[in-house]
């Protein structure tokens, strides 16, 4: 009499592996529409304002790319860690510290112009992120600490350092002590891709990260090591991989990417340091990394999907008075449905006609 039968798979399904993110997005749309309906809004109209209107013109689309850039960059970095069983939850801190270091360098040149300034500023941001990521990595490898806790706690430390700097020593001397620095000189700003749009050269950093990471993941010995460590640490040890080196390396890569995302924000649209460099991109990028299945190409799509939840939430509030915080509800639902539908990786659902 059973109509549905659940069968365990012999092996996780490849197709399902890449289909579940799509399924998760679809379920999020359905559930989102339902929520809108319960709240008293027309579901299809709300979804239209959420997902279509914000990117209906060139400007909107450029804003989508602007928003997706840091998410993509950080998620690529995180996938190095996550693939190899290293749980770096502190990308937000690495972003912040990268922004602090590169912002500090940019402030040194506040009244100077020159082609050499921007490369130094960018490099400083990457180094800042790496330095900050090296703390949980070194503590993990040499003192066996839990990298989840250390990296997460360091996020708050980095924000306090930023607070201290912009309130105190780095605050704009002409700025009435408000918590912000001077504006950077034009030479320390990432060039814009088009007049009137905010999309900047930082997108090339993200695209470069995608290409390089794809190459490393699938074409190099390091990528293979990461994969093996991800499946089983014991196997990796048995195979003779030097685990410590790899752990530190993936953290450094991850930190560099987060640091660069920070550089992109402060030398791109913001143009100075202040207390809110990032609206928690470092945390949202964790969703992006998993939604993209830790695959560089997948992460591009995932970053676009998640980016639109930010834009859509604003549009929906402006035009339909839907509370803006629904954007975060959508982000949560995507992750929830993704994790839930991972069930299908290991189990098959079979529909059986009722027998008499």
């Amino acid at each position, binding site marked *: 009499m059973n109509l549905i039968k659940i069968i365990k798979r012999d092996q996780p399904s490849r197709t399902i592996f890449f289909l579940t993110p799509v399924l998760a997005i679809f379920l999020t749309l359905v559930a989102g529409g339902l929520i809108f309906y319960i709240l008293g809004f027309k579901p299809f109209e709300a979804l239209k304002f959420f997902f279509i209107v914000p990117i209906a013109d060139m*400007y909107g689309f450029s*804003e989508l790319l*602007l928003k997706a850039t840091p998410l993509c960059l950080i998620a690529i970095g995180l996938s190095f860690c996550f693939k190899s069983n290293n749980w770096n939850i502190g990308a937000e801190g690495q972003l912040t510290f990268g922004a602090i270091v590169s912002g500090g360098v940019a402030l040194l040149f506040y009244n100077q112009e020159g082609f050499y300034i921007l490369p130094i500023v960018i490099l400083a941001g990457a180094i800042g992120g790496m330095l900050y990521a090296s703390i949980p990595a070194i503590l993990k490898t040499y003192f066996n600490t839990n990298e989840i806790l250390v990296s997460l706690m360091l996020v708050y430390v980095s924000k*306090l350092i930023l*607070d201290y700097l912009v*309130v*105190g*020593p780095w605050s704009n001397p002409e700025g*009435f*002590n*408000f*918590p*912000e620095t001077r*504006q950077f000189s034009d030479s320390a700003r990432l060039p814009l891709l088009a007049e*009137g749009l*905010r999309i900047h050269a930082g997108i090339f950093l993200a695209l470069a990260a995608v290409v390089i990471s794809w190459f490393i993941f699938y074409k190099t010995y390091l990528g293979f090591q990461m994969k093996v460590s991800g499946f089983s640490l014991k196997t990796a040890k048995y195979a003779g991989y030097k685990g410590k080196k790899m752990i530190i390396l993936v953290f450094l890569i991850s930190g560099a990417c987060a640091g660069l995302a920070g550089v992109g*924000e402060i030398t*791109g*649209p*913001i*143009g*100075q340091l*202040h*207390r*809110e*460099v*990032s*609206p928690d991109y470092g945390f949202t990028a964790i969703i992006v990394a998993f939604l993209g299945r830790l695959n560089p190409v997948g992460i591009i799509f995932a970053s676009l999907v998640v980016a639109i939840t*930010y*834009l859509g939430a*604003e*549009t929906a*509030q*402006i*035009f339909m*008075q839907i*509370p*803006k*915080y629904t954007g975060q509800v959508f982000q949560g639902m995507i992750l929830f449905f993704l994790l839930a539908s991972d069930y299908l990786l290991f189990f098959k659902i079979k529909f059986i006609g009722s027998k008499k």
Partner: protein
Amino acid sequence: MHKIFIRSLVSSLVFLFTLTVSAVAKDVKAAFVYIGPTGDHGWTYQHDVGRKAVEAAGFKTTYVEGVPESADAERVLRQLANSGHDVIFTTSFGYMNPTNKVAKEFPNVKFEHATGYKREHPNVSTYAARFYEGRTILGTIAGSMTKSNVIGYVASFPIPEVIRGINSFTLAAQKVNPNIKTKIVWAFTWYDPGKEAEAAKALIDQGADIIAQHTDSTAIVQIAEKAGIFAFGQASDMDKFAPKAVLTSVENNWGPYYVDRVKAVANGTWNQKDTWHGIGDGMVVISDLDSAIPADVRAKVNQLEKDLASGKVHSFTGPIYDQKGNLMVAEGKTADDGMLAGMMTYVKGVEGDIPK
């Protein structure tokens, strides 16, 4: 007869014209950008009360809540300017640079930025309230009612606005009780119930029996209620959150200003201004005084409120000395707005140093 006919024709035409003009005027749309949720019962909540006053005056309004001061602010502003809003109120300091940037691109849209100092384009005005006048009242009550002579003060950021409030509060308290000390804890946040509660507890441990706050959540008054001490509400009337503890609140009353400015846009009389209104103009309102306040203090406070409103009393009347005993304002003089706007030193009686 002829003349009368023409006259009535003219007057009816004028009448018709005014009708059309006022009909057009009603089409003015105002937008509000908020840093927090409208339900914070503090800063944003009060701005939203002001927005509702604009609605009640017959104008259409839109708002976007929870807009971070990151790169996102600029996009929200541009979208509002692009979608038919005639005047946009940006209600947090961190929106200053994005406001001026977007104002340049939309010369026909009026921008009103709260608490900032940059008016780089003719379509940008700034506005703020003389909250320190309200704090003179709070200081008078605190000085009269403290038994431990230690008054706690939870401060947000060491900017002139906040220093001014601490000073105004302390001067007023000293006037009625020369033995008091004001102890400050810097929370480095405008809104964080957790941090604010910690700060309040620290002050209670140091012997404070009355706590004032320059942060926006209701956490502090609730802690005071539990500890059985007194406190003052901030931004909105917080009495209902701690009926025993709250002696009174300093309310931010933006409604009259908002209605005024939106009407000015409708009539075409809007011009660039830097507004700084206090009790006299109704932008700062003292909530009902709690029954725990003795009759003599109550009478004194009521008189003080009237005198501050009329200008007979100024919060910063000399002689005023700084912590080291240097004269800041001579006897019989009052601090001018320039000095108030840049105030970065504590007066005598405040404990500790301003964080640098």
